[in-house]
């Protein structure tokens, strides 16, 4: 356990005990592979995201990593008082962690997006939502990729 803590100290800092324990059940993401840690730290300003409100919909197995459909939605009233500001999507084993950042506003009124992403291999996809009160929420899902989609 101490080894894991050493290697993933930053994960523990960034995501907190609750997240790492619950992720442990499905195999903790190997965040060391790319800049995912730094990106998460920067996005959340060091806050621990709670595993709530965010719904991440991706296939369990993707045959072609070059185009993987993904839907992310965040539960929010999307009013001036309470809305989702930003939604960050990461892939923890891609050459570059950040997949996209989506920006919502009360003018839009719905925090839901669907797009197609590239995944270099079997890994975890992580979605982190930042609310207008700066609280952060996340969802994470493992995905098995048969053929990677990053070229090279």
């Amino acid at each position, binding site marked *: 356990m101490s080894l894991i803590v050493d290697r993933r100290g930053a994960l523990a800092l960034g995501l907190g005990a609750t997240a790492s324990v619950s992720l442990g059940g499905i195999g903790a993401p190997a965040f060391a592979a790319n800049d995912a840690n730094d990106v998460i730290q920067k996005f959340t300003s060091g806050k621990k995201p709670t595993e709530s409100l965010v719904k991440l919909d991706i296939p369990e197995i993707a045959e072609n990593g*070059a185009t993987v459909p993904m839907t992310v939605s965040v539960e929010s009233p999307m009013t001036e008082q309470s809305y989702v500001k930003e939604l960050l999507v990461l892939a923890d084993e891609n050459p570059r962690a*950040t997949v996209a*950042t989506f920006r919502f506003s009360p*003018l839009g*009124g719905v925090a839901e997006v669907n*797009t197609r992403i*590239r995944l270099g291999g079997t890994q975890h996809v992580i979605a982190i939502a930042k609310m207008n009160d700066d609280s952060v929420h996340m969802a994470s899902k493992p995905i098995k990729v048969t053929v990677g989609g990053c*070229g090279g």
Partner: protein
Amino acid sequence: MAPAIKPRIRLDKKEAKVGDVVEVKALVSHTMETGLRKDTSGQTVPRKILNKFTCTVNGKEVFAADFETAISANPYIQFKFKARESGPVILTWYDDDGSTIVGEESIKVT
């Protein structure tokens, strides 16, 4: 540059009542070159992606995104907004080379 790329945009309704949720689907042709791939002679193909996307309804931004290289070629984006005002729905994609791809639809809110 190649002739202007025409994005394919679809709104699930052209007319809506205030508060109705309108779904937007948009597809644009673009290689989204990652800058990681090598061509047959072993040269790295330089990065060229659409790095930003915005959608305004009657001049107000309802949705925006910053794309990275992990967005698939011919990027597809689908999102929703609540109808408030009639007006043009303008979708803009920003290319690494500074050019933009613009598509326009309109919504009538009653």
